């Protein structure tokens, strides 16, 4: 069975007009993400990895080329609730409890009260936050807040999960734990995940494919298919395969930056 493409970018470019002249955030990007892929975008700051994710989510408009999400334009896909987006900060509303925060997109989308209850309970279970529904965000640790944010993005059954450096602000121990949980969640739900990061180990550990990007202009320099098995205990990070992929990512990153200097 041929994998079904979910996101297809063809010759995609995005140029920001700034006071210092045009900034080429994305330049002629071609990429296909298939259903069930876990794709990481890695690169130095300014390489357009976040911009690319934001284009998929209809938060930025490309200036050239085409992109489809589930066969639709990003705007249509957004309205069809095709994706859940997890931002770098948890973005929880301080005046709502965890339960009410996860309920927020469900309220906006018009789910019935009983449907909301069932979904909130289910996703809280998924991110292991059951029992915390009546806490306010400030009563939770940073890692727990980010888990609540992921739960919120899972509540409305989007097939695609777009994550913009979701664990960037967390310490390494918490990050390891959340990476493990995320992989588990991914294999259980079969969602397609786009994941922006600047950590090589995180990208290699999580992904089925790693997209290496470089700045000025933002472009894709390498796409690495992971040879790691789907089942990934944390200690896989000491295996030879893992280190080999990590080395390749590092070479790709260096090549992209060296051209620049």
């Amino acid at each position, binding site marked *: 069975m041929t994998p079904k493409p979910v996101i297809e970018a063809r010759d995609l470019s995005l140029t920001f007009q700034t006071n210092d002249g045009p900034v080429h955030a994305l330049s002629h990007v071609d990429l296909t993400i298939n259903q069930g892929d876990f794709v990481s975008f890695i690169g130095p700051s300014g390489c357009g990895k976040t911009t690319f994710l934001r284009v998929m*989510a*209809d*938060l930025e408009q490309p200036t050239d080329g085409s992109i489809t999400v589930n066969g639709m334009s990003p705007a249509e896909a*957004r*309205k069809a*609730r095709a*994706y*859940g*987006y997890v*931002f*770098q*900060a948890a*973005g929880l*509303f*301080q*005046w*709502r*409890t965890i339960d009410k925060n996860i309920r*927020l*997109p469900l*309220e*906006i*989308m018009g789910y019935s009260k009983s449907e909301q209850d069932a979904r909130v309970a289910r996703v809280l279970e998924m991110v292991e936050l059951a029992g915390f529904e009546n806490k*306010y965000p*400030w009563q939770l640790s940073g890692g727990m807040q980010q888990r609540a944010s992921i739960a919120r993005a899972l509540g409305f059954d989007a097939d695609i999960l777009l994550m913009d450096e979701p664990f960037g602000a967390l310490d390494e121990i918490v990050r390891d734990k959340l990476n493990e949980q995320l992989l588990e969640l991914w294999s259980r739900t079969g969602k397609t995940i786009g994941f922006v990061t600047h950590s090589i180990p995180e990208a290699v550990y999580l992904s089925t494919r790693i997209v290496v990007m470089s700045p000025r202009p933002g472009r894709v320099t390498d796409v690495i298919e992971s040879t790691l098995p789907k089942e990934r205990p944390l200690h896989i990070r000491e295996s030879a395969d893992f280190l080999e992929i990590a080395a390749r990512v590092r070479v790709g990153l260096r090549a992209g930056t060296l051209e620049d200097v």
Partner: protein
Amino acid sequence: MSDAAVPLRSRIWAGQVIPVVVVVAAIIAIWYAGAVWLNAPWALDQAGRDEVELSATELVADTWSQERPVLPAPHQVVQDLWKSTIGTRITSKRSLFRHAWITLSATLAGFALGSGLGILLAVGIVHDRTMNASVMPWVIASQTIPILAIAPMIIVVLNSIGISGLLPKAIISMYLSFFPVVVGMVKGLRSPNKMLLDQMHTWNASRSQTFWRLRLPSAVPYLFTSLKIGVAASLVGAIIGELPTGAVAGLGARMLSGSYYGQTVQIWSALVMAAILAAALVALVGVAERATLRVMGGR
């Protein structure tokens, strides 16, 4: 642990009581000294006419007990306050409670109108580009006009179309109180950052959903800060509204008639009453603020 739960003795030791007492004592001392300084010329003048020598003690005693002093001493004001509130029937024209209530009712009406107008304008300014460009400059310009200059015009114009009594005063009060509410609410409604707004966008939230679920709750702390300023401004507006009308009742009228007849003690007790009212109103808004923020999950 809240302040009230701490026993008085440890609060004294914690330095929470002594500074307050010292400041109050200093103010009262300066006030008494000021009374001596400002009232002494009249006392000496009287003594000169009666051809009596005043000893220092007699001079001081005189300056603190004149019937129409330039600056009444604190105890004279307290006595007058007591006499005109507790010591007077509430139905009497001399009851300061009655005058305070008349001013307070105009203040509350003006505050309600001003807060409502301020919130509505802020919502319009935040949601509509044209309103942002066209209304905001007028809002700011409105506050550069001295209220004392236009208050009589408002009263006269409204009177000519048959509106008198509480409403003209409430409108002047509204004129002063809507401004801080507009400014605070505009800032509050714009306080959600780009990420939070993007997040609403990814859920395809409508403008009204974004307003009710994100902008309005974010604006609440700003709103209460504005309301505290607004309620004090409302009181000032209501008092100013009583000055040019030749109003017979209200704290403003007491101040004005006091100044016509040289009843300085009466002016001061009306002033003190106004200050007490203002402090009580601001404190009430503060109580409402704490209750609201607690409901909103404040720590």
